[in-house]
């Protein structure tokens, strides 16, 4: 089967790759671009571990084809920190122990960042529903929700 | 001699007794003695058992000391998740 040439931007960097049209964006990120931060937990859009942003929009990279990335801007967990400065969410997740095994963490960080960009003052309920597509099996979500709420409060104060 | 209590599922193998007395100063010696004196217990012991000595549950170590007056209870092998 012939492969398709795709040019796209990932975390601000222009990248090119060849992929089979059946490959998902997640396959491409992980297997062709070496960006293994996004995880495959289900492959069917039910767990959110593969969350990325595409042109600023939160999506599951397992539910998008690699060929659809042509001309887009992709954001992954590898692009959240600015150099050695962590995003406030990253700092709070460590401080709050909002992760145990950490497999869901990249997806949750991407999703939470997308929430706070849209809604800087979410309620607990809003955070819980926004993150309902990001499964975590370790934490019972308690410390995750607290970390997101506290990050939001801190970012509001700082701005 | 140390009195070793058995779970009731094992009692048919030792003529209905709920405990048996064997020689031994460690868990390992007691298990060896049980195997020798009560061959019917062999398959169970081979499948793996744990031993509680004075309330301390010994999952696998054979070197734990056992006193003459120790309470020794045979338990199904402990596992974890």
């Amino acid at each position, binding site marked *: 089967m012939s492969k398709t040439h795709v040019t796209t931007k990932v975390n601000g960097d222009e990248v090119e790759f060849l992929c089979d049209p059946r490959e998902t964006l997640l396959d491409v990120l992980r297997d062709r671009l070496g960006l293994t931060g996004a995880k495959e937990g289900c492959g069917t859009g039910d767990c959110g571990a593969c969350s990325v942003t595409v042109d600023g929009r939160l999506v599951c990279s397992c539910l998008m084809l690699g060929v659809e990335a042509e001309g887009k801007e992709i954001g992954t967990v590898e692009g959240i920190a600015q150099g050695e400065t962590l995003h406030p969410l990253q700092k709070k997740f460590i401080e709050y122990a909002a992760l145990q095994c950490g497999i869901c963490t990249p997806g949750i960080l991407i999703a939470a960042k997308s929430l706070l960009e849209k809604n800087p003052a979410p309620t607990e309920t809003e955070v819980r529903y926004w993150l309902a597509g990001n499964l975590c*099996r*370790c934490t019972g979500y308690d410390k995750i929700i607290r970390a997101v709420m506290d990050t939001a409060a801190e970012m509001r104060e700082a701005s | 001699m140390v009195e070793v209590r058995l779970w009731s599922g094992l009692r048919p193998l030792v003529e209905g007794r709920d405990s048996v007395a064997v020689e031994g100063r460690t868990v390992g010696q007691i298990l060896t003695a049980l195997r020798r004196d009560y061959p019917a217990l062999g398959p169970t012991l081979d499948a793996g058992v744990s031993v509680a000595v004075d309330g301390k549950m010994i999952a696998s170590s054979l070197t734990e000391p056992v006193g003459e007056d120790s309470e020794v209870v045979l338990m199904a092998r402990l*596992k*974890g*998740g």
Partner: protein
Amino acid sequence: MALDSSKTTGFKYVGTRPNRPDGLDKVTGRAKFGADATAPGMLFAAIKRSPHAHAKIVKIDASKALAMEGVKAVVTRADFAEGLTGEDWNILENVMAGDTALYDGHAVAAVAATSALIAKDAIKAIEVEYQILPHVTDVDKAIEPDAPVIRAGAADASVPEGLHPNVVRYYESGHGDVEAGFAEADLVIEEHFTTEATHQGYIEPHACLGTLGGDGKGELWCCTQGHWNVQKVCAALLGLETSQLRVTASEIGGGFGGKTTVFIEPVALALSRKANRPVKLVMTRSEVFRASGPTSSTSMNVKIGMKKDGTITAAQGIFRLQGGAFPGAPCDMTAMCAFAPYNLKNVHQVGYDVITNRPKQAAYRAPGSPMAAFAVESVMDELCNQLGLDPIEVRLKNASHEGTTANFGITWPRIGLVETLEAAKAHPHYAAPLKPGQGRGISCGFWFNHGGETSVSLAMSEDGSAQIMVGTPDIGGSRASMALMAAEVLGIPYENIRCTIADTSSLGYNEISHGSRVTYASGLATIKAAEAAVEELCRRAAAKWDIPAEAVYWEDGYAKPSGPNAGDHEPLHITELTADMGATGGPINGHFEATPEGAGVSFATHIVDAEVDPETGATKVVRYTVVQDAGKAIHPTYVEGQFQGGAAQGIGWALNEEYIYGEDGRLQNAGFLDYRIPVASDLPFIDTVIVEVPNPGHPFGVRGVGETSICPPLAAIANAVSNAVGVRMRQLPMRPARVLEALESKNG
């Protein structure tokens, strides 16, 4: 001087809440999990699985697959070791079917190819001819007289004569005279309960990268709770020498017991040996559900007699567990845990291990205990309701404590059940008013905890920092706990210690991270290894001062002369002792190897408020409090995390999670869409109370905490729902349709 740093109070580092050492890697996406590894020349593998619940494998024809461009190897059972016995044989039989496919999803062949897509296509090209056999997937149906015999001769010596051949193990214990006890009771309640099989639901599918050559030497990278066990089992299944296979544990994306065994690792290695190239094998989510190790489903009868004052006079339980097509369902654990919270004069418990055409069960967090608690604590709740008694007072009245005889025969050492009940009683949650439509449930839970083979090595660096190598994969922050315990002994800051999970070639044997054993056993070994290093540090100081080593003691990172007789010496800081260690006797290391026993059992009491929509039967957990004995919380934040995680898994098990098999014996919900684990919007915040009744078997008093937290939730939630709707819920999960039916039965 024999150093002993045992203490239960006065800690400087233990009990604090520093950031975890792997935090940065995990929030930046660079932590490497099972599927994140690559190797030059790597192939991708896929597994062909049986679509039938039970079928003879007549013929496997892989010629079309092998002819495909990019396909490098196909393996079947013929590519694995022969002549295995016992559990090795069971595992091999599960990893790759022999002459019979025993469940929907059972592996029958595997392919390695140059891309994942080619491997997936090649799987479809393998032709398997099956002869379909009758199947059974339900635990009660599997022991009916006319049920198909799944594996003749699988039963061991424990099974009494006359039982169906699908009963493969039997356990019975107890003491006293239960019939006499029931006769003394003012009220006797007997109920039948069922629970469905659930899955650990770790978000990371099983994944590995294996390389094996014809010389019998191999490398394996995988997500596992125990890489020495992987090494041992893979070596057996492939006919290798154990030491020739080096296994490295990746970061692990959840396990909960489900990654204590192997499913795909031997297959990747067999393919690698055949293709002579590295092979990566990653399960899909559907494969995880169909062909990893879910927990048992159960059918249980529990009978308890009680006097009007709340005294239990007798208790009896029969626990039937199906564990898939292989022996191993934890019927004995279920039976032993069932009545563990209670001091009983008359008690009798029986467990049956039943095989069915389902995947081989694996451990799931306190395997067997949550179901037992569901049945027993439901009957306790009903007795309290009918006798008009407070459920915590009744539990306190009958609670096991030091010196009472356990239901499985031992005399309890110091345990913390009473303390958890007292703390629950005093918690504001227990007194908070309920709204209409809400019900409150409480439950106790028990788990043994475990020690196991453990090796730890600690090495000082010249700058006075320390590195620890442990062999228990870090599932929930254990590296932080190890560093805290080492810091406490060495007297150096937590940040100056790095804890690494060593591979199988870098450290001695370590049992799996299971049985809530890591903070207990690896922690104990870390303390002992640090003590060994401190002893050597003291010897170096003694040599510098030219006094006997016995005259030196260690305090807060300094070697100090122990008294006036030892001479007037300025204390030496650890950095002064490590800086020239190469010249004063060589590197300073500490190590410890043992099988520590005395893990210290753990009890918990949970309080739950649930709200039921009377029109739809939908249940919402509105408030949840976990009270559990941790012995000593080394890193309290991670202890809370274990409490909350166990409660959340229990909520899923109680309300919505279940394996659903069709009449055809096929799994109908092999995905996160219809296997419904709790999502963020399903849950409230989960309050925690850490009770600390020190375990005498650990230098700092640690008891395992990981598993006990999943023991009470099923019962606590069932009690809350039962009290909300006014009908006893005896079947899990309490899906809305079931709750609605219960409401209808009440309303006539």
